[in-house]
């Protein structure tokens, strides 16, 4: 198993508040890696560090053995890392289809003039990418809402659309920030299914944050546990179950 | 939207038939609302009052009844052009002649009016080079244009200033716009010729804040300040002059800075001593004003009595006078019936009002004698100066001509450039 992503002693703080302290862990190719921890443990901050939204004060991130300097979210996207957000970050004013199409932006190369004329290269490109997007739409079973404004959709579906948008970029690494938060049991089951399918069908490596222990234990290969910005556990679901620190953190003891 | 506009189309259609009867129709694009309403209202009141007078007293123009319609454009160029197009469709022979009364609209009509054969009368504003009737056959910057005025202001200062203007320091405080740039060439050349120092101080639109400009002036310590202002800028200038303790009787305004509005807005007494140019005297002793009072206002048909005799109201009357006289002149050639735009154009171009004519018409010396020709659409080129005594304007000079030769050369040069850009071949119609 070769490392896809390597996080080395990341420390991040806003003003006085320490969000992450000296956190290190790695992600293997094609695994499902979960980050768990109580609220405010710094999980989302971790993802934001990985895709360049936040700049850590200390530590490094390397992707496919390549360290990155002064990274920006845009560069990260270019490297083939996509993500979804804790509180949905879809483009409310656009249809589901357009939202997913934005995920293809990096794949589309025609210049402004070609786009203005909507002719030749650009048209081909549009159709081609539309086909790709339609595949994903089928995959996630959201054909019926193609043309609806995402703002109008129920929460569960929005989460799914956001996943679709991320997938549209055909990422090597997919970061999922609480993909199942606030879902009912059926929706959760669907989402689990999708995550597993994605992982296996597209061979996409997945890092996900999730609160639902059951889900995490079932679907993830390895788990990192954060608490108050510190890593307190790392290993297979089984190890984590037996990890005393983790149990304390969750039961709020110690 | 399209449905609605169709409705309004019907209304306009309906209105067209209001002026169907045999009358000389005067189309007026005016502004009594919006930023410059305060100036527009008296002017257009005067204009219409004079037309009313003719109907009441003389039964129209040589028995041809006068009708008019006023279209409000709020000094907004687009709306002004809309008014022009609307008025064009009215009346038997169109709107007779148009007074755009706004720089923007004047420029907008430069191309249109000739095509529609409608004379433009720009009484003391608009393009100065339009004075050359060979290039601008349809435009009449009547009585006096900007450049003549600028030159006259210099001559006036030259008279007033102890031992002449030579070696004196003059500040030109101007509205930073096309309008404000208009006089600069003339004054610069005068400065060279008469050897006085000229300092130009622009005021950004709208000019309701002139602290820095007047502190500069105070630093420069000029002998005179020429105020080439517009709208709120004038009152503010006078006020701020007082604030920095600059003598008001060393300020000379141009005629858009020389009405009661400007001085009273500044608070009457503050402006005491302030000089301003004008192309028409104020005051209500003139016979024509008395007649309007007698025949129009006493019959309760007047516009608004409080404007009678004010600078801008009188200017409105003068505007009506020259237009009407143009029509009369045309009638003298084409017969006493309704005149077309083309005929009125001829009338204006051959207009001649001697001192006696003006006396007969009851204007006395409210305006200088006017004589037009194809080369000269200005007519008089004379400017007079008034001084504000705290309550009203008093005459402060005789009619002043300024450096006619200088101005004329500039006009022909500028007109030639226009002709080149528009590829017009200058000729008399």
């Amino acid at each position, binding site marked *: 198993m070769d490392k896809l992503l390597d996080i080395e002693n990341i420390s991040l703080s806003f003003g006085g508040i320490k969000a992450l302290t000296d956190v290190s862990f790695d992600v293997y190719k094609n695994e499902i890696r979960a980050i768990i921890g109580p609220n405010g443990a710094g999980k989302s901050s971790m993802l934001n560090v990985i895709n360049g939204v936040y700049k850590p004060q200390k530590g490094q991130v390397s992707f496919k053995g390549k360290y990155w300097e002064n990274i920006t979210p845009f560069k990260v996207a270019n490297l083939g890392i996509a993500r979804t957000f804790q509180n949905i970050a879809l483009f409310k004013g656009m249809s589901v289809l357009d939202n997913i199409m934005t995920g293809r932006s990096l794949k589309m190369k025609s210049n402004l003039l070609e786009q203005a004329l909507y002719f030749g290269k650009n048209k081909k490109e549009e159709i081609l990418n539309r086909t790709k997007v339609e595949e994903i739409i089928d995959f996630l079973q959201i054909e019926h809402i193609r043309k609806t404004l995402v703002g109008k959709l129920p929460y569960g579906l929005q989460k799914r659309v956001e996943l679709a948008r991320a997938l549209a970029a055909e990422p090597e690494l997919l970061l999922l920030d609480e993909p199942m938060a606030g879902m009912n049991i059926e929706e959760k089951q669907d989402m689990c299914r999708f995550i597993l399918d994605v992982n296996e069908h597209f061979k996409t490596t997945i890092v996900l944050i999730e609160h639902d222990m059951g889900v995490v234990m079932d679907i993830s290969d390895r788990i990192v546990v954060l608490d108050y910005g510190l890593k307190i556990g790392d290993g297979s679901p089984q190890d984590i179950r037996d990890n005393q620190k983790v149990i304390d953190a969750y039961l709020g003891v110690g | 939207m399209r449905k609605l*506009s169709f409705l309004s189309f019907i209304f306009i259609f309906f209105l067209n038939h209001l002026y169907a009867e045999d009358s000389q129709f005067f189309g007026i694009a005016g502004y009594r609302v919006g930023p410059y309403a305060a100036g527009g209202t008296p002017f257009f009141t005067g204009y219409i009052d004079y037309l009313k007078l003719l109907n009441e007293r003389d039964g129209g123009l040589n028995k041809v009844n006068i009708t008019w319609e006023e279209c409000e454009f709020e000094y907004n160029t687009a709306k002004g052009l809309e008014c022009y197009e609307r008025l064009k469709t009215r009346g038997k022979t169109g709107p007779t002649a148009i007074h755009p009364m706004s720089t923007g609209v004047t420029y907008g009509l430069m191309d249109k009016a000739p095509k529609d054969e409608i004379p433009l009368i720009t009484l003391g504003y608009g393009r100065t080079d339009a004075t050359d009737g060979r290039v601008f056959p349809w435009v009449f910057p009547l009585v006096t244009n900007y450049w003549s005025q600028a030159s006259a202001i210099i001559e006036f200062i030259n008279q007033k200033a102890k031992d002449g203007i030579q070696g004196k320091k003059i500040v030109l405080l101007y509205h930073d716009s096309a309008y404000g740039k208009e006089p600069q060439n003339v004054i610069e050349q005068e400065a060279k010729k008469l050897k006085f120092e000229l300092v130009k101080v622009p005021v950004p639109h709208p000019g309701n804040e002139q602290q820095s400009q007047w502190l500069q002036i105070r630093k420069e310590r000029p002998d005179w300040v020429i105020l080439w202002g517009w709208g709120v800028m004038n009152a503010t200038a006078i006020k701020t002059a007082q604030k920095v303790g600059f003598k008001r009787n060393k300020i000379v305004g141009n005629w858009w800075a020389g009405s009661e509005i400007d001085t009273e807005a500044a608070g009457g007494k503050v402006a005491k001593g302030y000089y301003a140019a004008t192309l028409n005297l104020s005051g209500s002793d003139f016979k024509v004003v008395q007649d309007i009072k007698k025949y129009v206002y006493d019959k309760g048909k007047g516009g608004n009595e409080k404007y009678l005799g004010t600078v801008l109201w009188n200017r409105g009357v003068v505007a009506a006078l020259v237009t009407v006289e143009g029509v009369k002149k045309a009638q003298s050639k084409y017969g006493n019936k309704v005149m077309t735009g083309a005929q009125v154009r001829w009338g204006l171009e051959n207009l001649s009002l001697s001192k006696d004519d003006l006396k007969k018409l009851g204007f006395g010396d409210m305006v200088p004698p006017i004589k037009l020709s194809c080369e000269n659409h200005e007519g008089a080129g004379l400017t007079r100066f008034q001084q504000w005594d705290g309550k009203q304007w008093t005459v402060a000079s005789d009619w002043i001509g300024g450096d006619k030769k200088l101005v004329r050369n500039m006009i022909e040069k500028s007109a030639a450039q226009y002709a080149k850009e528009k590829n017009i071949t200058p000729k008399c119609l």
Partner: protein
Amino acid sequence: MFYRENGQFKISYSKDQALLTISQDKFFIFALVAFSLLIVPFIASDYWLTAILIPFLVFTLAALGLNILTGYAGQLSLGTAAFMAVGAYAAYNFQIRVPNIPIIFSFIGGGLIAAAVGVLFGLPSLRIRGFYLAVATLAAQFFIPWLLIKVEWFSNYNPSGVITTPPVTFFGFIIDTPVSKYIFILVIVILLTILAKNLIRSKIGRSWMAVRDMDIAAEVIGIPIMKTKLIAFAVSSFYCGVAGAVYAFLYLGSVEPDGFNIDLSFRILFMIIIGGIGSVMGSYFGAAFITLLPILLENIIHFLAVALSITISSAVTSVLQLLIFGALIIFFLIVEPHGLARLWSILKEKLRLWPFPY
């Protein structure tokens, strides 16, 4: 009933992504274009062409430009008139300085220069957002006319900084009659509308909306925010520039820099807000509303006055018109806060179901 897309199946994505997917729309739009191109020139009076339709088209073009920037890319701009001024003066200088250059190239040139200037004043948008960004464009609004007045070269050393546009000729035709002007402008507007539509349904259009709706998310999925915003400024300013050139060459004939004052900018902003932010059609509706409604109101009042034989001075008429206009805007907002365009689509929905309530 009249407006059903049922049974209109699209068998290819290209069909589904076409500009007009529903046959009724196709029909309506083509009918409208045909009408305004072939019928209007014959039935419309000079008054209608010069005083209403031509300004309406010019403002539509400007509104379209602003809508791209503000409506689609979400960057508030109060400098529209300034960019129009750049377009007008640039086009003028192309015409007089480049020997016998075709007018179209002058217009395009004007648009491009405006685009460049637009990008320049768009740079702050990378750091500043919302109302605060408006100040950058306001700076343009006040700086550019000032510059045009100060630097006499721009106006070819006209003593008062006024430009007088040379006669417009197109492949030998001299465009000086209202009809020819109208058709010329209409064609320009239609073409640019189609281009705008294309941009909006392409990658760049999606990127604009993405940046508008949530810029961080946009960047995270690989949309370069900076580039996207600047392109928005460029395209928008291009449209405004062309609008300005048309405004000067085919509508006014000669203009002073003050002709492009902040009032004009606001007028155009009002247009897109009333018409519908982020809607091409809204630009048309808004321009129509702002240019036509006052005239309509004035005529109605005038008409009533005549009908009831009461004399209302033109001043009162126009004050009343101002009053009603203001009240109407508020009323419209309360009825439909998303502008006329939204009303339009609601109407279409209704038509779809008519005569059944749902």
